[in-house]
């Protein structure tokens, strides 16, 4: 099962839980599984100011990005550049 790390400010929705292992083959499937456990959380994770990082790389595929059982998923500030 892949590990999803909750941003600090989303942990209010998880009762303080920082990370969770959930089943799924894509980021989207992981989020569906998390939403089932913490209803309403997905809108805090899928926000325009947050980018999705899978295995230490920001993914352009977003929720469609495949994950492996040992994958790490983070939600980090979306970065622009100069």
């Amino acid at each position, binding site marked *: 099962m892949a590990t999803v790390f909750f941003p*600090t*400010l989303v942990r209010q929705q998880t009762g303080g839980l920082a990370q969770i292992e959930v089943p799924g083959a894509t980021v989207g499937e992981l989020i569906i599984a998390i939403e089932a456990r913490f209803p309403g959380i997905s809108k805090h994770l899928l926000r325009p100011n947050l980018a999705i990082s899978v295995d*230490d790389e*920001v993914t*352009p595929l977003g929720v469609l990005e495949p994950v492996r059982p040992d994958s790490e998923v983070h939600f*980090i*500030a979306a*970065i622009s*550049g*100069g």
Partner: protein
Amino acid sequence: MSTTTYNVIGTRPVRHDGADKVTGRALYGADLQLARMIHGAVLRSPHAHARILRIDTSKAEAFPGVFAVVTAADFPEAPADKIVDFGEGDTMLSSLRGNILASGKVLYSGHAVAAVAAVNAHVAAEAAALIEVDYEPLPCVLTAPEAMAPGAPILHDDLPNGNVAELIRYEMGDLDAGFAEATVIVERELDTATVHQGYIEPQNATAFWSSDGRIHIWCSTQGSFVARDASAAVLDVPVSQVKVTPMEIGGGFGGKINVYLEPVAAMLSKKAGRPVKLVMSRRDVFTGTGPTPGSRVRVKIGVNDAGKITAAQAWLAYEAGAYPGAMVGPGAMTVFACYDIPNVLIEGFDVVVNKPSTAAYRAPGAPNSALATETVLDEIAEKLGLDPLELRLRNAAQEGTRRADGPRYKRIGCIEVLEAMKASPHYNAPLPGPNCGRGVAIGFWFNAGLPSSATLSVNADGTVNLIEGSTDIGGSRTSLSMQAAEVLGLRAEDIHPTIVDTDSVGYTGVTGGSRTTFSTGLAVHDAAQIVVEQMKARAARLWAVDEVAFSNGVFSANGQSFTFAELAAQLGATGGPVSCSATVNPKGVGGSIAGLIIDVKVDPETGKTDVLRVTSVQDAGKAIHPAYVEGQMQGGTAQGIGWALNEEYFMDTAGDMRNGSYLDYRMPTALDLPMIETIIVEVPNPGHPFGVRGVGEANIVPPLAAVANALYRATGKRLNRVPMNPATILGL
């Protein structure tokens, strides 16, 4: 370190657009002349915060020579919560539209209120001055700490936390336990002023709204597709109705990603039925575009006897300007990014204030936060009696180090950059005399991926046309052509690059985020590989073989061979021309570490700082064109030194910028800088076929702190405010 040998990559060919740019032939946005073109002027708010009670444009409309006047009322309403996705950094449409022409309230001095198109720019300016605007002035708030305080004037009624638009928080490990392990703890708070990118070419846009509904925009932009998408969103037309032709661009550094004039020129054109050109004055550029945030950053770092950082805490408040989006996210993510720290807490606040809406500026957000971290580390090194580079080496991030925001580094060149600094002739040279000081600092920037497209067409003479959409700010035509040439076994000059409009190439993101040589380079690389495959197939057809080898520009099979040019000449007879495209949206972005060593001399009576010697060190991954890599390092260093020493938005209490000219903004002149030595470190990025990391930004991260550290060594004073100008140095 880089070991692969290349034929073209790593050489220094003359840039393809060079002759045009040294002879005055290159066409920048303001150079455009179109038949029947008229000229515009923008009326801007004199108030930093005021309600607009009434706008009367009748006198301007009646002024001889005027064709059209527009205000926010001419633009479609922005749905309250619509978000525009530009691929990087999404924006609320209401903010975008509100910034282009104010409606309801003006939020900063310089906020555009109305625009006029007339027979020439002088008449347009005279007419704009005749527009009557009744304002109800409101109290203004100009700094993040003031804007966060209870009772501060509120800019936007719809933000949930007063003037705080966004909270950021990253936590890792156990902060209290970490500080408990520390033997030395230093905490400092440092402010930085609002500064501008300072590109020499003012913003400009020419637009023609045709009677068939198609809108053609010519402008100076870092990203033609972003300009297209943003303009279409503001004008509420489908993106396919807008074509953006990127003109040559006179500098950007992050400041020419947002649109300001483009939709206004388009709306004026719609009303006037003629092409309309808008060009900003220098004061407009300072007050009406996006500078980069001023900030307050507090950093606390604890280190044990072994010189290992046990805990680090940061609090960051960045001034977004009039609309949310202060780059505090990247500021927070980079504040400790160079180091492997087990226990971390980072809190960031994106705070709106009555200043121009901020924009990116080379590694946006990172110099502000690195200033605090790198000066605190300097102080700790001194307390421990450790060389400041040695302290950094003991804590340097490396492959596998986890950042506080979560992800772990892949291959990263932090140790290599620090070792290069330590071994440099500069670091090992004595200081020239009294009142002198040497400072060091390092910094990190992520760099970006994002989509890019390229098309390669093989000419019968053996050369190749490269069609691409990345506007060329610093030699990217050549760094891209070199990557094509390397794959195709050609010389850089055999590739003919052209940057085309948004109708003529696949989607390409901005020239920003240090991404062009990486991402568009990857598109070029991939397209070149397809060319090779197709050319192999042609050779196979000619030779009636199954397998053709390709190496160093020569196709061969069974003892037969063709040079690239020989085979190119036969394409017509083997099935027709070869033309291949690729569009990428890559992962594999490699972050870059930069370091700076700087020597200064301070006049103890006047506080004047002279910069004596500078060495910039940066991990380029692989330097495609080393001269342009050096140029990026030197340019970012120069901007950082200007930021550190003299540049700032000097606002009066009413929020009016008092120094909105090059005379008083005080960017460095040639006489203010020495030669800038460079050391290119090459730790190849495994995510790019040639190892490219991108070099445009990380170099501006270290200078603020390096200058502060050098000033400390020269004066014994730790300053808590940037710019560290002469009066600040003397405490006057």
